[in-house]
């Protein structure tokens, strides 16, 4: 670390928001110093104030937010004192921001090239032609494959990953001294995320840019950052170098966060996840005490009477906790003393719950006028294109894949929300017809669904009790009086208090809403539950409790579970079997333990390599991230659909011939031309290396 003055120097920053004429503190006494070439992670759940810090540094707070006290020095410049017109000289030129949602940050009515050129003309004084030439260079630098085409495209014509690259190019165009990244990869696929993280690493190292990286994803922090500050309820609770923080967390909250995310390869049969109970206190309910105390397993009396100071625990390691000394000596820990082992499930008696055969879901696009005149057939989107699956009783099947892989459509076809075009779906001994309207109540009862976004899944105008009664009335034919009697039992099994029956969804937190949604799905004791990204909309500390709940319920009711997630660690934790989908087809379907040990299909291998792990010492993936985007489902590549992006492409055979299924001795199957033995020996070599 150098002795040169920091690029960004924040001292006791306090920010408040106005809410109905009351100013409520959102960030409190924050100190942060970022040096040139340093990437600083700012981690926290929603409501922790991490984005507020980023906005305060930019002075973007808007009329309802105010910097109450503290100073923000940027290269010696007092950001708090700057006037609006002076700020304009700093914005974009010396401090650049890459926001979370690229779609809303780009102007939809301007071509990409013009948007980049605009900045260069304003800040670098280039003329039109020079600016366009420079814009093209910048796009090359952020590894946009076809810069000329992108320059002349509108935002909607390029993919989300490409949009994010364009924003990064814009942010870098003026060679800013400080780059603020606010969850820049949160909406992207893991493969795209990996490529973008690589890009950040390379560019910031080269230019010695100071980076403030705001995120909730600890994996990303460990892959990218040098230092990390953990924010909770507006307070800095711990601040350390990445390696130190991940290995020796001193604050119970940090410890809890690290424990609550499943690691790749961690299995439900080994240990339950450690959820942090409770939720972040809302603005205005943060007192002069330790803000984390109500959720802390180690809280002592002092914690709820007095606010702890930020203490320096070791050189470069600060923590705000009364008990950090005991924690650092290993005397106390938030790890639950005896990890409750989950009873290992008997593998089931082999009874098949779900069977699909050559399942296809095609969506017809409307024919255009020229197509009609030329009498061409309409184009179809092949969302699911020939899927064979078998799922046994009480087993869990994880489905993973990038967006556009068809995993959600597959699940919706099984439950009946999407109509299958062809193929068979067999549930227990019933053949399921295509749409919901043609299914009988008796079949509906056996398969239920948990949706991704709990905010959307509950009717905002019904109380929780009313919502939970409905399945009993509609599917089990109970009277409303009988159904009302079931509500408290349903709340009990998802560990919510009875009193919640009278609440409306907006009075519940995201995790609680998801519990209600799960309770509703379990009302009819379904044989098959489909959970579509059940935790991706939830905060990290809450995710673990939902995953534990799904697992517990499965142990009790012995339902089969299909778990869809983009998060391979989540899938790996719960699933017995994992199916990897790409462009509507299954590429590999293998035992969950083996697939993480030794992925066979090149696509599985690439997906796994793309995930940032929270172990900062683990070797940075030995593999180049996948290039390019998922091709269009309207016109998928010939032969093997994965061949254009495949790092192990064999040449002509992959391009022209569809692969055949290969099966190993354990029953794991892959859809690839490369002989199984060859793929396995490659993995063997990699492991030894």
């Amino acid at each position, binding site marked *: 670390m150098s002795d040169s003055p920091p690029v960004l120097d924040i001292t006791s920053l306090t920010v408040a928001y106005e809410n109905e004429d009351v100013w409520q503190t959102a960030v409190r006494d924050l100190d942060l110093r970022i040096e040139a070439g340093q990437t600083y992670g700012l981690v926290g759940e929603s409501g922790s104030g991490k984005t507020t810090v980023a906005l305060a540094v930019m002075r973007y707070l808007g009329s309802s937010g105010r910097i109450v006290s503290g100073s923000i020095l940027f290269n010696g410049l007092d950001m708090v004192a700057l006037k609006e017109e002076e700020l304009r000289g700093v914005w974009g030129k010396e401090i650049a921001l890459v926001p979370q949602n690229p779609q809303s940050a780009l102007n939809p009515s301007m071509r990409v090239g013009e948007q980049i050129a605009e900045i260069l003309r304003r800040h670098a004084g280039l003329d039109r032609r020079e600016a366009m030439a420079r814009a093209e260079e910048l796009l090359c630098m952020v590894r946009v494959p076809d810069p000329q085409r992108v320059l002349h495209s509108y935002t909607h014509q390029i993919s989300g990953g490409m949009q994010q690259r364009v924003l990064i190019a814009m942010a870098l165009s003026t060679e800013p001294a400080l780059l603020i990244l606010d969850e820049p990869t949160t909406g992207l696929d893991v493969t795209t995320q990996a490529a973008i993280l690589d890009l950040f690493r390379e560019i910031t190292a080269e230019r010695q840019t100071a980076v403030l990286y705001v995120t909730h994803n600890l994996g990303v922090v460990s892959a990218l950052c040098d230092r990390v500050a953990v924010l909770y309820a507006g307070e800095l609770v711990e601040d350390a170098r990445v390696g130190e923080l991940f290995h020796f967390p001193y604050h119970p909250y940090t410890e809890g966060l690290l424990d609550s995310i499943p690691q790749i390869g961690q299995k439900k049969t080994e240990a339950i996840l450690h959820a942090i109970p409770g939720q972040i206190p809302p603005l205005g309910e943060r007192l002069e005490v330790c803000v984390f105390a109500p959720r802390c397993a180690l809280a002592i009396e002092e914690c709820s009477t007095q606010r702890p100071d930020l203490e320096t625990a070791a050189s470069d390691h600060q923590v705000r906790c009364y008990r950090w000394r005991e924690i650092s000596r290993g005397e106390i820990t938030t790890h639950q003393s005896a990890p409750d082992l989950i009873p290992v499930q008997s593998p089931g008696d082999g009874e098949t719950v779900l069977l699909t055969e050559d399942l296809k879901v095609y969506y017809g696009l409307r024919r255009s006028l020229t197509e009609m005149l030329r009498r061409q057939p309409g184009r179809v989107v092949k969302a699911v294109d020939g899927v064979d699956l078998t799922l046994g009783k009480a087993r869990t099947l994880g489905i993973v894949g990038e967006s556009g892989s068809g995993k959600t459509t597959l699940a919706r076809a099984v439950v009946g929300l999407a109509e299958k075009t062809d193929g068979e779906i067999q549930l227990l001994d019933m053949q399921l017809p295509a749409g919901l309207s043609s299914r009988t109540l008796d079949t509906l009862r056996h398969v239920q669904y948990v949706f991704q976004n709990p905010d*959307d899944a509950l009717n905002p105008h019904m109380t929780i009790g009313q919502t939970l009664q409905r399945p009993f009335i509609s599917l089990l034919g109970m009277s409303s009086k009988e159904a009302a009697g079931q509500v408290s039992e349903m709340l009990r099994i998802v560990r919510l208090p009875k009193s919640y029956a009278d609440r409306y969804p907006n009075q519940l937190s995201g995790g609680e809403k998801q519990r209600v949604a799960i309770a509703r799905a379990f009302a009819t004791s379904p044989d098959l539950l489909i959970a579509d990204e059940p935790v991706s909309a939830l905060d990290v500390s809450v995710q673990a409790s939902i995953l534990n709940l799904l697992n517990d319920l499965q142990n009790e009711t012995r339902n089969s579970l299909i778990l869809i997630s983009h998060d391979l660690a989540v899938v790996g934790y719960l699933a017995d079997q994992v199916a990897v989908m790409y462009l509507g087809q299954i590429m590999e379907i293998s035992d969950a333990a083996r697939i993480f040990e030794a992925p066979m299909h090149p696509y599985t291998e690439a997906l796994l390599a793309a995930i940032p792990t929270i172990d900062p010492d683990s070797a940075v993936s030995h593999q180049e991230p996948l290039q390019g985007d998922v091709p269009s489902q309207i016109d998928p590549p010939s032969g093997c659909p994965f061949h254009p992006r495949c790092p192990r492409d064999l040449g002509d055979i992959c391009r022209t011939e569809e692969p055949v299924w290969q099966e190993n001795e354990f029953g794991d199957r892959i859809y690839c031309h490369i002989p199984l033995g060859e793929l396995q020996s490659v993995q063997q070599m990699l492991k030894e290396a």
Partner: protein
Amino acid sequence: MTVTQSSSPANSGVAPGRGRRLLSSFRVLFDRPVTAFGTSIFLLFLFLAVAGPWLAPYGSNEQIYSDARQPPSLAHWFGTDQLGRDVFSRILYGSREVLFEAGLGTLMALFLGMTLGLIAGYRRGWIDELLMRFFDSLLALPALLLALLLLGTIGRSRYSVLIVIVIVYTPIIARVARSVVLSVREKAFVEAAQIQGESSLHIMFREILPSVMPALTVEGALRFSYAIFLVASLGFLGVGVQPPSPNWGLLVSEARPHAAQLPWSLFFPAAAIALVVIGVNLMADGIKRILMGER
């Protein structure tokens, strides 16, 4: 595969439960001065409409020959008309007529529009196409012209005016309802109801309708103010309710030939129309601000 970080617990749009709370108490309509003003006007006229017959010093068609053509005085607050009828009393009786017709017509249009909008928006397909194209063709004609055409065919009476209001406003209300239904039906809670085998009727009226109600309430309040104006306009044109009804529009049109000599008999009914339309409009605007969360 989108990863949504739920950023704040308060979602955009109408907070549920809140709408219920808000409407259950009439008091919120008095929080904002402008809304309070509009609501007061509406309540005043509502009171007059109900209590009119008891408050009115004279009958609606009572002619006092001795007092004909009198300017406003203590005996006749708003003066008398050319036939010696008390203008104040006639306005009181008229408010009952106007508010009742506009109100009932709007309610019927709301009910019909809501049902058709729900069906069109939820069912989609040919029934949606059919209804919407039919409504488009009705909406292509200006409201007053359509009203004149209809009255020409079905005859002039109190009931025809009611039918006209329903036919003129149902398409507009149905469109509003349908547009909300289209966005709500995509929500996961509707799909959850479908998976649970709920009937279409249940899904439309129990799951979706509550989310449509705020928009319908606002639209209904607005339509009500236009309906008052329509009832008065038809009366004025002489195609709606026939004399000797005390319909305000009719009062204005009867007073028009004598405007120079008996200006009060023209001014007061016209002012009553303007006042009640402004009042209801302001109230509707206030309801919209409350329900749609604009402040």
